[in-house]
């Protein structure tokens, strides 16, 4: 049996399993709390695993392993930002959000402000961030199928994107948060299992000596000692000061963006209490941290055993480093059949990874559309729960369809920057609005609206005029050059700008409501009046 047949079989097994879960979940999804928040009945451990499943995207798994395999140490910089970011969520956001919100990020903002403008802004930002992220994952899926299964035709790529999109729509429309959460839990187990297996085999080849592994990786990379130091990918000598500032800009977006990502925030609503939200973040940190340590070995292992040249030849971004490593180490340890089997496993896991993440993104954006825009802005809070859930399902279908079409059109474009952009927007617009809402008494509607639109607008504006959109070989539009902003990542400007807009908007408006602040402060810290879990 070829690895393609085996990988497709394993993947179909995953699909069959997750569809069964979806059928089960749809039978247990009766009201809005079930659809948006899984009935708030997941345990801290389950939600911690789902957090891992939601967060460890293809960009983390294939992307970081690939970055390390091609550029050495610099790939590691990315994973550290992704991990440290969880402390912001743990210390400042998770529990307070669980106590004061219901279904979406906007619930916390609308708590003490004029609901319509604030929900409109939060809904726009949620959908924008989710679509950017979604698009990057969809295009990634199309590229992956070509690399893993040898389907190079445009049609095969488009069909893969459509298939991934159709599955994510099914998970969300029928399974809601319950189905999506279980898909993410299953994926987290498979991903951790697959990554651990390959890591152990790789370390075994080097007698469990990290230093030997690093030496071989440095030798095989052709770059010597520099491969183990920062500077080959980010802030290279040739880039000068702009490169160094870009590195800080990226670091800021990664570390501050996570706690503003809508698909991450809604995960905190799926548990019964704030204490369970805390526990789920602790488990999430454990799982995600361990995973990034594994990717460190996978990346350097791929450089050492496969070789940087061979990896770059298969995919210039290194996205197939992990699957290539799985095949090589399988061959070295178990012979040819072992390589085939291991490659198939990792390829199937990569697809499961993409599916779980895109389902989470679709759910976050359709929830926000139905709960924030439809129920509270269009219907002014007069929609019934039934109606809201129906709209959420239709929204999931529409957003999924839009993502499929955009994904197919964007497949020849370089959209890798979209993940970093999603983090930058989340850090620049959403995070200031959330933090000010929870901790600043004076904060008001004008402040919230200014922070979100200011942060979102600044990040988008700067990226449009950055080298990732035009004026470089790797740009979105290679034929044009209208770039003047020297950095690829807008965070270093747009994050302070978002915070500044929130402050300025607040100060320029006379609105102030100390009684409502007292309520959100008491409720967020004590859990009084917090939404309870439902039991059926």
């Amino acid at each position, binding site marked *: 049996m070829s690895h393609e047949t085996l990988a497709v079989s394993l993947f179909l097994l995953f699909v069959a399993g997750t569809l069964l879960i979806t059928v089960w979940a749809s039978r247990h999804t009766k009201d809005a709390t079930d659809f948006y928040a899984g009935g708030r009945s997941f345990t801290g451990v389950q939600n911690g695993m789902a957090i891992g499943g939601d967060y460890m995207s293809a960009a983390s798994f294939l992307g970081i392993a690939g970055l390390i395999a091609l550029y050495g140490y610099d790939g590691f910089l990315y994973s550290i930002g992704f*991990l440290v970011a969880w402390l912001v969520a743990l210390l400042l956001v998770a529990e307070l959000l669980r106590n004061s919100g219901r279904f979406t990020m906007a619930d916390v903002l609308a708590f003490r402000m004029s609901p319509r403008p604030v929900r409109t802004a939060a809904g726009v930002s949620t959908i924008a961030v989710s679509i950017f992220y979604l698009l990057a994952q969809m295009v990634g899926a199309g590229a992956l199928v070509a690399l893993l299964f040898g389907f190079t035709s445009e049609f095969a790529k488009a069909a893969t994107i459509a298939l991934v999109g159709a599955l994510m729509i099914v998970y969300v429309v029928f399974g809601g948060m319950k189905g999506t959460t279980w898909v993410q839990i299953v994926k987290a187990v498979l991903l951790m299992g697959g990554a651990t297996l390959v890591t152990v085999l790789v370390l075994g080849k080097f007698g469990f000596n990290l230093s030997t592994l690093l030496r071989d990786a440095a030798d095989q990379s052709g770059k010597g000692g520099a491969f183990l*130091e920062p500077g080959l990918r980010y802030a290279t000598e040739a880039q000068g000061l702009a490169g160094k500032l870009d590195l800080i800009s990226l670091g800021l977006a990664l570390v501050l963006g996570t706690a503003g990502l809508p698909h991450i925030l809604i995960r905190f609503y799926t548990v019964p209490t704030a204490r369970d939200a805390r526990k789920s973040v602790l488990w999430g940190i454990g799982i995600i941290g361990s995973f990034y340590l594994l990717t460190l070995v996978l990346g350097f292992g791929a450089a050492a055993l496969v070789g940087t040249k061979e990896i770059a030849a298969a995919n210039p971004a290194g996205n197939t480093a992990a699957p290539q490593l799985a095949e090589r180490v399988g061959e070295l340890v178990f012979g040819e059949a072992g390589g085939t089997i291991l490659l198939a496993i990792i390829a199937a896991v990569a697809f499961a990874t993409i599916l779980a993440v895109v389902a989470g993104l679709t759910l976050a954006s359709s929830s926000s559309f139905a709960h924030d825009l439809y129920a509270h802005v269009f219907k002014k809070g007069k929609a019934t729960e039934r109606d809201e859930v129906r709209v959420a399902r239709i929204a999931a279908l529409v957003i999924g369809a839009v993502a499929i079409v955009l994904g197919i059109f964007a497949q020849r474009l370089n959209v890798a920057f979209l993940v970093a952009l999603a983090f930058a927007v989340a850090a620049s617009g959403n995070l200031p609005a959330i933090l000010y809402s929870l901790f600043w008494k004076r904060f008001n509607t004008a402040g919230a609206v200014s922070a979100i639109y200011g942060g979102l607008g600044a990040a988008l504006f700067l990226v449009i005029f950055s080298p990732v959109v035009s004026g470089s070989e790797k740009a979105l539009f290679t034929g044009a050059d209208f770039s003047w902003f020297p950095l690829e990542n807008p965070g270093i400007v747009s994050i302070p700008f978002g915070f500044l807009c929130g402050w300025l908007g607040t100060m320029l408006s006379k609105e102030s409501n100390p009684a409502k602040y007292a309520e959100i402060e008491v409720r967020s810290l*004590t859990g009084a009046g917090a939404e309870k879990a439902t039991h059926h």
Partner: protein
Amino acid sequence: MAIDRQAGGTVYERFQSSTEFQELRRRFRRFAFPMTAAFLAWYLLYVVLSGWARGFMGTKIVGEINVALVFGLLQFVSTFLIAWLYSRHAERSLDPIADGLRTAVESDGEVEKP
């Protein structure tokens, strides 16, 4: 749980100004705010050194293991450590007060039921 019923404002404002709540908020903020500043500074130091102090980061410590790798791994260690410290702090110093206040607020006749 004693709140001053004669004081003005809403029920939540009266609970907000109670000594128990003030203590809860003080304990929460006194841990969360400086710790956030500390780990952000520690992380930024790492990023800045990766950009500007290449020679230092490339210094080998044992075998092929250099300062950059150890510094990066220390970010993992500090993240795990801070997460554990916070959960211990919350369980010991925050949860008991929060539980008492929540019961008091929820059993207060003047609070609207959600």
